[in-house]
């Protein structure tokens, strides 16, 4: 009551001023016309009504006075011009929604659409330059024919007249803050939205990027409200406003989901319910635009509460979970929190201004949120890189371990080979050398026989030759073939025979790639050595022929001389060496053939299988 009384009092005090109008005394001054008279009319009113004028204070939103009046309201303003010699600037700061402007009865401006679809002139202030004869000295009258809908805060803002330069500067300032900044906001939103949309497309797993992109897209659609000069593509303001409200709600809902997802929550049911509400609202806006438009405050309040709830929720979450990106995001949300409160009050007409501030700060918010997301992305990347490094470390450790194991196994295998070789060597020594040594010792120790020095030397030389064979066969490279293994023996015996003028001939055929195995080679060499020793000692031969030949899968060995021979039947004549030769041939899997007759030389031969018989 007191408020109304105060307002009435104020109106009464202002009334004379309204009647008198304001006076523009100098050319450099500007005055802001805050008093006017208003009179409602219908959509197609051609001229200002004669009566029904009410004094109003600008800015005036008529829905408070005529809450059901859709159509035209005529506003009449006066000002006094001291002189009309200088042109005057005129600024129409805010008109909702479309208007025509008359100065001293002449039409100087008219919007394209004064009926539905109504032009949306309120998005930017307009500037006019007035000169004589239109401009008169003394009282000038301004008529503003405003077309609007009661549901969407129709009315007229202040009008400024005066020095053209300063009036135009004021218009530009207004245009910048109300229009350009909104455009900028739109661009930033779309860019960030697009960026995170791409990010989400490449990383579907991080759904919050997708929700963020969705949120910015709907926010852009909603913000389009502040820069669109007509309800196009719709044919009336109701649809526009209804859909605008729907976009707003969807953007706040997706924003809430984004924050939830960002904090790691996935409340499927809540999300589904909210999205279904959005969908319903969207459909309802299309089907009943008028109704939705009129009562858009309901969805907008809902969206706004969602927005605040999600922001407060997230801030609480950030406080409980200290993390750099949470702080950055929460901080960037603090700005719109304050600003949107202002805008909300403005929207609900609690405070009066021609400027919604959210758009101004919105880019800051978007950049803040973008930083938080980018930070999170960078953290994820770093983790991936660290993971790579760790993986590499572990792989190299595993490789190292594997190499160690392999090396150990290799060493073990090598060691086994060495042990095997040593065992072979021991067996060689044991079989041949050891036996001969024992035989020599027992012969020399035999008390019944005087040791014959020549016999001792012979025995020792046999031992020496056997040792030589063992050395030759054990020190060879593994891959030496039979030819190479026989070569040292052949060479040595060639020299020996040559030294005592026995012609020795060797035929080694078909054994180039043959490998018998160490033990069998040694056996063969011992056989040859003993056979040749016999030739050297006993045969008195002038020619000895050794033939080693591969015949299919058998190895044919033949040693024959042209010496004095012996009777194989009579073992006493010679043959101390024969049993040993038989044993050696037998170990090679063959039977020794002895062909000899006195005066006709001796032939020892056998055919051994190439691989050892089991």
């Amino acid at each position: 009551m007191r408020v109304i009384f105060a307002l009435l009092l104020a109106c009464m005090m202002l009334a004379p001023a309204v009647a008198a109008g304001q006076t523009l005394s100098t050319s450099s001054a500007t005055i802001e016309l805050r008093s006017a008279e208003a009179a409602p009319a219908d959509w197609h009113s051609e001229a200002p009504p004669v009566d029904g004028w009410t004094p109003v204070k600008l800015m005036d939103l008529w829905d408070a006075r005529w809450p059901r009046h859709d159509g035209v309201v005529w506003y009449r303003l006066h000002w006094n011009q001291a002189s009309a010699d200088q042109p005057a600037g005129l600024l129409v700061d805010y008109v909702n929604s479309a208007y025509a402007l008359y100065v001293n009865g002449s039409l100087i401006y008219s919007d394209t659409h004064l009926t539905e679809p109504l032009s949306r002139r309120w998005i930017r202030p307009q500037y006019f330059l007035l000169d004589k004869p239109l401009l008169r000295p003394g009282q000038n009258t301004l008529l503003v024919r405003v077309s609007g809908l009661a549901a969407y805060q129709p009315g007229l803002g202040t009008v400024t007249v005066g020095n053209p330069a300063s009036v135009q500067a004021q218009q530009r300032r207004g245009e910048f803050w109300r229009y350009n900044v909104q455009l900028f906001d739109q661009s930033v939103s779309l860019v960030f939205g697009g960026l995170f949309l791409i990010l989400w497309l490449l990383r579907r797993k991080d759904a919050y990027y997708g929700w963020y992109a969705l949120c910015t897209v709907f926010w852009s659609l909603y913000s389009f409200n502040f820069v669109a000069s007509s309800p196009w593509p719709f044919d009336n303001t109701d649809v526009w406003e209804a859909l605008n409200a729907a976009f707003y709600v969807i953007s706040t809902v997706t924003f809430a989901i984004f924050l939830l997802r960002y904090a790691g929550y996935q409340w499927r049911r809540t999300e589904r319910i909210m999205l279904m509400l959005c969908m319903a609202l969207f459909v309802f806006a299309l089907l009943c635009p008028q109704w939705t438009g009129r009562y858009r405050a309901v969805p907008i309040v809902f969206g706004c509460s969602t927005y605040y709830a999600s922001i407060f929720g997230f801030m609480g979450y950030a406080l409980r979970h200290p993390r750099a990106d949470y702080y950055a995001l929460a901080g960037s949300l603090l700005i719109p929190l304050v600003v949107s409160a202002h805008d909300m009050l403005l929207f609900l007409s609690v405070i009066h201004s021609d400027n919604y501030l959210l758009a101004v700060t919105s880019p800051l918010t978007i950049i803040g949120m973008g930083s938080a997301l980018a930070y999170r992305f960078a953290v994820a990347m770093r983790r991936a890189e660290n993971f790579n490094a760790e993986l590499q470390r572990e792989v190299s450790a595993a490789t190292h371990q594997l190499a160690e194991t392999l090396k150990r196994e290799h060493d073990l295998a090598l060691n086994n080979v060495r042990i095997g070789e040593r065992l072979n060597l021991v067996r060689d020594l044991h079989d041949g050398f050891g036996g001969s040594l024992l035989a020599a010792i027992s012969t020399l120790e035999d008390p019944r026989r005087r040791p014959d020095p020549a016999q001792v030397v012979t025995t020792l030389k046999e031992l020496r030759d056997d040792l030589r064979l063992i050395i030759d066969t054990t020190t060879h490279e593994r891959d030496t073939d039979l030819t190479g293994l026989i070569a040292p023996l052949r060479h040595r015996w060639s020299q020996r025979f040559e030294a005592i003028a026995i012609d020795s001939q060797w035929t080694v055929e078909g054994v180039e790639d043959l490998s018998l195995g160490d033990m069998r080679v040694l056996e063969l060499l011992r056989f040859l050595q003993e056979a040749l020793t016999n030739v050297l000692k006993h045969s008195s031969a002038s020619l000895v022929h050794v033939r080693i030949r591969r015949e299919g899968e058998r190895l044919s060995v033949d040693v024959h001389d042209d010496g004095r021979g012996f009777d194989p039947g009579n073992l006493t004549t010679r043959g101390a060496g024969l049993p040993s030769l038989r044993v050696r041939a037998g170990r090679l899997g063959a039977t020794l053939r002895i062909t000899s007759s006195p005066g006709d030389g001796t032939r020892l031969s056998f055919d051994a299988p190439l691989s050892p018989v089991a």
Partner: protein
Amino acid sequence: MVSTGEHIALSPVLIVEDDERTQARLVHLLRELVGTTGDIAVADTVADAKALVLSLKPRFALVDIGLPDGNGLELIDWVERHHPDTTTVAISAWGHEEVVLAALRAGAVGYLMKERDDAELRAALQSIRRGGALIDPLIARRILAHVTFTSKEDAAPPVSPVESSTRSDTSLSERESEILQFVARGFSNREIADLAGLSRFTIEGYTKSIYRKLAVSSRTAAVFEAKALGLL
């Protein structure tokens, strides 16, 4: 025995050997070659041997690889550098082919194995007197392995003319390599001579030239290598 024009003069002879019996055996064998008038000196340490080389200027030296106050390989190398006119032959017992090869690379033109019969040593010494050298299959195989390595290097373009001339001096001829192949397979010199259409003495000459090349290409390196192999 009188030296003929074909023979190189062996006297004066230096025997570097610390074992008395072996000394006596070698003196006995050499006496047959150089005759009673021949000059045979015996040293049993490296120091004595060096002194004798300088004073006696021997034509022929038999050097035991294992000496009490030093290493025969180093002595061979020393003799080769200080008195290159001396024909040096290494003595070894049960000599491992690595040791023999090291001696050849240090500058020896042959080697004698103590465990061989006198008849074999005599034949070897005669061969040396004829200007040749003896070789056996294991050594031949070693040299072939070494040569294969060298000829691979030859495939690369020579870095400088000096280097290329050194290379061609030390790389084996086709004939030499062929003879080594025969030896490695156990053929006697006589057999090789028949197969290659050469006289057996020529074969011995080839052997000596192979040893020379081996020594020229690697004498200085040989000592270090032998050390690395743990032979010194």
